[in-house]
């Protein structure tokens, strides 16, 4: 059986990595990811893992080395935040396009400028089109659980895509929480051995990775990435179920919280979902029909599941902790609205941009959003579609 411990998000991620025992870890320090690396470095120094720990000179090289190691047939993990992720960018795409199942913890942090070390989702959202599976975490427990599942999802032979598990910077990464960790043997048995079909180290069967690919083939290769993402939908659910057998904690694409009979709902990612839950509980006590949809998987985007969850809802607020400047709403908002368009579901959709650069979001503000939504129902119309929550105008 597992054991109950108190861990920060970074220690939870570090613990998952130590238990997974990847063959290679390549990383470079950046706040708020650093403690995660320290934790792993301690495990290397104490001989708890015999991972090759490659302390590269930049994040660009971290992802580059990860690509090389994964192509060589190793199980590879890394971690970064914001500017580090931005520096990797070019190779983030290359990792996915070469179908290399690298697993990365992205400890969310606002992108510069101005330089800021606190949480928002501009980093992970910027990488949404790179071809990575993207799994969000509400708390340390989920950071840990998602990483373990991430390895198994990524390496599935029908998927072979890299997986990014997010952890809200400071809010999760530096906050102690009660959680359960599994027995190491159970983790091993769960993730199994990684046996890729083609590797650089199979010198008797030489293969070429990363060739020049011109208009006569490139499109088909991109299409295969699309299909792999589709396969991932099934695999994410299978792995979630299997993980439930092991841990008692089941995982799907999203969590419907108090959605039974809800007329008003909030859709949120990451740690904010936990805060919203508290408000939902309080309002439900007062008999208000409110609920939360916590989106766990952002890529592949869970279209069907989201539509099903919104079927009975009258008005929904989409929470975006990042912005796409000049666009009509934040990235989660545009995505949700796009899947609703043409469906048989009629629900008013509002967008709330919040928490940029680590700006705190309060229970009162969330409650205020629910009253905004009530106003929409009563008025029968939307005043302001795109809203900025908690900013001084």
């Amino acid at each position: 059986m597992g054991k109950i411990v108190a861990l920060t998000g970074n220690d939870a991620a570090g613990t998952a990595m130590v238990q997974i025992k990847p063959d290679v870890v390549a990383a470079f320090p950046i706040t708020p990811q650093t403690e995660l690396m320290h934790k792993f470095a301690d495990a290397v120094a104490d001989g708890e893992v015999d991972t090759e720990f490659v302390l590269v000179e930049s994040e660009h090289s971290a992802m580059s080395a990860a690509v090389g190691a994964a192509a060589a047939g190793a199980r590879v993990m890394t971690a970064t935040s914001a500017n580090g992720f931005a520096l990797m960018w070019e190779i983030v795409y290359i990792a996915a396009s070469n179908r290399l199942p690298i697993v990365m913890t992205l400890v969310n942090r606002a992108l510069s400028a101005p330089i800021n070390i606190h949480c928002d989702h501009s980093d992970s959202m910027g990488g949404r089109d790179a071809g990575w599976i993207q799994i969000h975490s509400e708390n340390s427990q989920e950071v840990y659980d998602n990483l373990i599942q991430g390895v198994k999802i990524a390496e599935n032979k029908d998927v072979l895509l890299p997986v990014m598990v997010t952890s809200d910077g400071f809010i999760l990464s530096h906050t102690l929480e009660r959680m359960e960790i599994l027995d190491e043997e159970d983790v091993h048995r769960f993730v199994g051995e990684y046996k890729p079909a083609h590797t650089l180290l199979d010198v008797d069967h030489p293969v070429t990775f990363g060739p020049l690919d011109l208009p006569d083939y490139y499109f088909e290769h991109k299409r295969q990435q699309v299909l792999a993402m589709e396969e991932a939908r099934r695999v994410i659910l299978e792995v979630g179920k299997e993980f439930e057998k092991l841990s008692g904690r089941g995982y799907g694409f999203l969590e419907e919280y108090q959605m039974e009979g809800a007329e008003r709902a909030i859709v949120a990612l990451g740690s904010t979902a936990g805060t919203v839950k508290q408000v939902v509980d309080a309002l439900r006590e007062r008999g208000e029909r409110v609920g939360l949809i916590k989106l766990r998987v952002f890529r592949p985007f869970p279209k069907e599941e989201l539509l099903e969850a919104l079927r009975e809802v009258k008005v929904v607020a989409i929470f975006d902790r990042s912005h796409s400047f000049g666009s009509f709403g934040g990235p989660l908002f545009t995505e949700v609205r796009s899947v609703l368009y043409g469906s048989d579901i009629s629900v008013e959709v509002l967008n709330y941009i919040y928490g940029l650069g680590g700006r705190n979001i309060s229970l009162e503000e969330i409650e205020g959003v629910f009253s905004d939504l009530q106003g929409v129902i009563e008025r029968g119309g939307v005043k302001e579609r795109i809203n900025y929550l908690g900013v001084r105008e």
Partner: protein
Amino acid sequence: MALRLKELAQKKDLLSGGHRACAGCAGTTVIRQVLLAADVPVVAGCATGCMEVVTTIYPYTAWRIPFIHNAFENVASTISGVEAAYRALRKQGKIDREIKFIAFGGDGGTYDIGIQALSGAMERGHNMLYICYDNEAYMNTGIQRSGATPHGAATSTSPAGKKIPGKREFRKDLTSILAAHDIPYVAQAVPSHWRDLMGKVQKALSIDGPSFINILAPCPRGWRFKENESIEMARLAVETCFWPLFEVERRTWRLTYKPKEKRPITDWIGRQGRFRHLMKEENKHIIEELQANVDYKWEQLLKRCEG
């Protein structure tokens, strides 16, 4: 393995023919010579650039060994990862063969955009040989100047204009920069002196730790000379002492070939279209500057080799 032509001729080329390099390209000659020198299985990587582009157009590959291309600036970190994976899997008993790792990069991918990744990989001590095939410009993208382009040379971004006659800056001495990393083995080579080149590769591969060989790879397209003169262009670079052949083995500098008579730089540049404008009267001072620089670097090298 002794480097006997007769035996080498029997060995299978690990880079096949049929690739798309220009006629007379010395870059592919360099790769073939390097791979021919290896006695154990090799895994190679190549930075974006001419050599990668001409050898791997999907669904074809000219590489008869495992090969990876990742991006332009990161072949050193990519091979770092491959080599780390090898150590990890070998430790676990999943691989029991001896395998060597070679990273190839052009001068752009090595002197310029990739110098950070290269420096990091060398400092970390990965067991890899890094080969820079230096054709003195960004050839793949249309002959733009690089940190390796010689002073005065005309390129697409340093053209021989009415006001500015070619590249104003001098090339950077990358081989010395690598020597300053205090890695076990650093050398310079050319494909015209194939025995010297292959001997250096063998030495580098026999060493445990990082090694670096900078190899001049004349490019008929970019330098503007006839396709059948590539090897001659390499030889003249050595005879003029523009590209001395030396090695730095565990901090000891040694010339591996000394020209009987140091020929003037004009013997080399006079044969290449990229320097044609220097022959005009008003540009003669540039040739003098070039010669002075060659002389300075040569004297500096001789002093280093004296110890």
